C-alpha cells in the first residue's frame, strides 16, 4: 500500500514537473528567470524618518532673505549632503511634503529646484538616493521622487536620454546579488523601453557576445522602422519583416527584461508584435512581464 502510494505520488510529481517544463517551453522562459542576480521584486514601502539636523539646515536655507545669505547657508547643507545623499534627498522630499500645502506646490518645487541647482549633486548619487523613494508610503512623495528622477534623465528630442544613473543602481544591485525594485524598472521602461533594455543588458553584465549582438541588432531593426515612420518615410517589406522577426525573437528570449521590452512595445506598436506573442506574454513566467502585457493589452 505504502509502495503504491509512493508510486502514485511519484507519478503526480512527474506530471507536475512535465507541466511546468511544457509551460516554460511554451513561453520561451528558461533557467535565467530564476537567477537571483537578475531578480526584480515589488519593493517594500519606504517611510522617511525625520532628521532634525537636515531639516534645520533646509529651514535655514529657506529662511534666508538675501542672495549672499542663501549661498552662505548652502555651505553647511552641502557638507552634510555630500556625506549622505540618500539622507539628504529623503529629507528634501519630506520638506516638500510638509510645505507644499502651506507654501504652495509651485513655490515648494521652486525651493527644491533652487537647492539642487546650488548643491549640484552627481546624477548617479541622486538617482541612487531617489530610486527607493518611488516606493514611498506617501503617494505625493513617491510621485515627486519620480518627477525628480525624470529630471535627471536629461530628456531631449535631439539626443538619447541619460540612463547612467538607473544603470548604476541596477548594476550595484546585481553585483551585490540584490533584487532590484520593480518601481525603478517600471520607471525606466515607461521612459524609454529600448534604452531601458540595453541599459539592463549592460547592468546585468551580459558577456555572451552573440547574445549582445542579437539584442542590439534586433533593437536597431525595430528602431529603424519606428524612426522611418516618425519622419514620414516608407518602410520596406524587408525592414518591416526584420522588425517583426526581432519582436518575435525577443518575445521568446531567455531574459525577462528582453521580453518585458516586447510587452511594453506591444501596446504602442501593436502591428510589430504578433498578437499570439503578446497573448503568450500575458502568461509569462515572469510576473513583471505578465503584469505589463496584461496592462497594455487592455
Amino acid at each position: 500500500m505504502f509502495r503504491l502510494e509512493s508510486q502514485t505520488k511519484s507519478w503526480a510529481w512527474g506530471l507536475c514537473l512535465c507541466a511546468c517544463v511544457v509551460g516554460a517551453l511554451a513561453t520561451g522562459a528558461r533557467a535565467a528567470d530564476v537567477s537571483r542576480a537578475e531578480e526584480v521584486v515589488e519593493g517594500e514601502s519606504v517611510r522617511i524618518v525625520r532628521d532634525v539636523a537636515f531639516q534645520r539646515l533646509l529651514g535655514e536655507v529657506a529662511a534666508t532673505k538675501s542672495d549672499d545669505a542663501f549661498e552662505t547657508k548652502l555651505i553647511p547643507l552641502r557638507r552634510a549632503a555630500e556625506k549622505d545623499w540618500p539622507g539628504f534627498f529623503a529629507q528634501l522630499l519630506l520638506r516638500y511634503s510638509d510645505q507644499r500645502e502651506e507654501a504652495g506646490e509651485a513655490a515648494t518645487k521652486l525651493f527644491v529646484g533652487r537647492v539642487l541647482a546650488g548643491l549640484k549633486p552627481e546624477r548617479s548619487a541622486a538617482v541612487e538616493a531617489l530610486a527607493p523613494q518611488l516606493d514611498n508610503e506617501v503617494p505625493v512623495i513617491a510621485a515627486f521622487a519620480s518627477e525628480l528622477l525624470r529630471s535627471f534623465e536629461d530628456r531631449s528630442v535631439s539626443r538619447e536620454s541619460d540612463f547612467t544613473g538607473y544603470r548604476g543602481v541596477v548594476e550595484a544591485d546585481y553585483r551585490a546579488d540584490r533584487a532590484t525594485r520593480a518601481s525603478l524598472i517600471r520607471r525606466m521602461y515607461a521612459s524609454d523601453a529600448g534604452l531601458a533594455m540595453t541599459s539592463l543588458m549592460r547592468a546585468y553584465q551580459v558577456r555572451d557576445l552573440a547574445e549582445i549582438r542579437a539584442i542590439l541588432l534586433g533593437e536597431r531593426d525595430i528602431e529603424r522602422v519606428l524612426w522611418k515612420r516618425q519622419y514620414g518615410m516608407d518602410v520596406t517589406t524587408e525592414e518591416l519583416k526584420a522588425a517583426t522577426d526581432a519582436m518575435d525573437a525577443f518575445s521568446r528570449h531567455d531574459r525577462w527584461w528582453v521580453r518585458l521590452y516586447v510587452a511594453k512595445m506591444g501596446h504602442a506598436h501593436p502591428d510589430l508584435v504578433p498578437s499570439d506573442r503578446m497573448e503568450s506574454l500575458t502568461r509569462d513566467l515572469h510576473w513583471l512581464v505578465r503584469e505589463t502585457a496584461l496592462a497594455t493589452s487592455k
Partner: protein
Amino acid sequence: MSGWSGPAKWRRRADGLRGLCVVALLFGVAPMASAQTRGLCDAMDVNCDASVDPLDIGAMSDLLLGGEACSLCAGDVNEDGFTDGADIQPFIDNLLSPAPMLGACCDGLGVCVETAEQDCAGDWRGAGSGCAATMCVTGSLTAYRPRHGAAYFPFPKTAVSANDKTHPQRGPGIRLNAPGNVDPAGEDDLIEVRVDISSPGGGVALRRTDAAMRVWLTPDKQIDSEIAFANDVTDALPMNGGASLTIYVEWDSAAHGVADLELETVGGATLDAVTFHTFRAIVMALGGEGQETSVPIDTNNGTFVVGFALYAQGYDAFLYDEDNVTADGSGSVFNEVVDAISHRGVDRVAIFGYSHGGGSTYDLADRLDAQRAGIGNFEIEFTSYVDAVGNNSDIDTSQETRRPPSTGLHANHYQHGTLFEDFFLDGGPVTNSIPAPTGLDVETTAWGAGCTHFEIDDFVQVRSFIETNLVGAMAP
C-alpha cells in the same frame, strides 16, 4: 360710383372713345399692371377680372356709356371720385405705360411699407400683397469662436462681435474637417451659430457661397441632423415655431477658403451674413508653473490673457499648462500641432510662453523642427518668451536663453531675479530677438523697473507687444 353731367363731358367722352379704339388696336394680349391700384381695388381693372388688359377697354367704353361699374373704383383712374371723360386719358396712358404694381415691402428691420418692387430695398412680397396681411421677418446670425472638445474650455463661449463677423480675418474662423481628421478630443471642428428671428414661425433659409460649408443641427454630426443645401440654399429652417435655432457649420474640404453664410427670407431677401475663414495657423500659449487655465481667464495669467485676445480676434488659439510639453517636446501640445498640420491644412505655427512655459516653448519648437519630415510642411512664424525658465522638470530653475529653432520672429522679455522677491527666477537675453537685438530687459524701462518674475507677464506693455507682433507676423 360713376357720375355724368353736361355736354362738355359728352364731347370729352366721344373723343376718349375714339382714343380707346386706337389703343385697342395697339394692344396685344398681355395683361398690364396698373398704377391706380388702391388697396385691393384697381381702377384700371374695369371688368374686375383681376387683370389689366385689353379686355378692360371694352368695359371702360361700356362704363363711360352708362354701364354698371363692377367695383367701387372701376374706371376712376384719376381718382377724382367719378368715372368720366377725364379718366380716359390716364386710362390710355396707363395701358400704354403701365405703372408698377404695389406690394408689401419688408425693409429688413421688421417694418412693412407698400411700394413698387423696384422701390423695395428689402423683401418685396408680390403685387397686390398688403402690409396688413404681411409678416416681416428680421433675423440675425451669431457665430462663436471655435470649440475645444465638447465645449469651449479653456475659453469662455465667445461670440464674434457684430463689427467682426463679416471681416475676412477677424470673422469666425473654422477648422478644415476633411475626412481623416483625427480630433483627439472628439469632434470639435464645427462652429456654433445661433439663428435669431423676430417673428417666431417666420420662414428663413440659409445660403452659402462655398459648397465646402455644411450645416448640422448637432455639433458632432449625428445622423439625420444635417440641413441640406440645394443650389447652395436650404429649405426653410426648422425653427419649429421658435425664435431661435442653433446650428453647427462644418468646412468639409481639404481646401482653404473664405466664404459667407447668409440668412435670408424664403423669398430670397438677405437678412444677415457671417464670413468664415479657414484656419491656416495655430497658436499655442503655455502658462507658467502653477498657472492653470480657467474660465473666466485669470487676469494674473498674462500668457492666457494674450491667448484669449488672439482667440477673440479670429485665431485658432490653445491655452495649455506647460507641463503638457515634456522635456523632449512630446505630449498633448505637440500632438495637437501635428494633428493640425497633418489633417487640418495648418502651415503656420506660433508658440509663446512664460517662465517654465518659455522653456516648453523651446522644447516644443525643437521637436517640431527636428521631426518636421514626419509632420508636414509648416513654418514656426512667431515665438515669444516672457522670463523664460528651462523646463526639463518642475524644479528646473535655469534660464532659457536658447532661441527656439527655426522660428521666423522671436520676442523676448525678461527681468532679473533675486532671492527674496522671486527666488532668482528669471530669463535672459536671447540672440536675434525683438526688441532687437536680444529682447527687452523690462527693468530698464520706467514701467517695468523693479518688477519681479511673478509680475512681468502681466504688464500690458508686454502683452500688447506679443499680441501685436504675432498678428503682424501671422494671419489666422
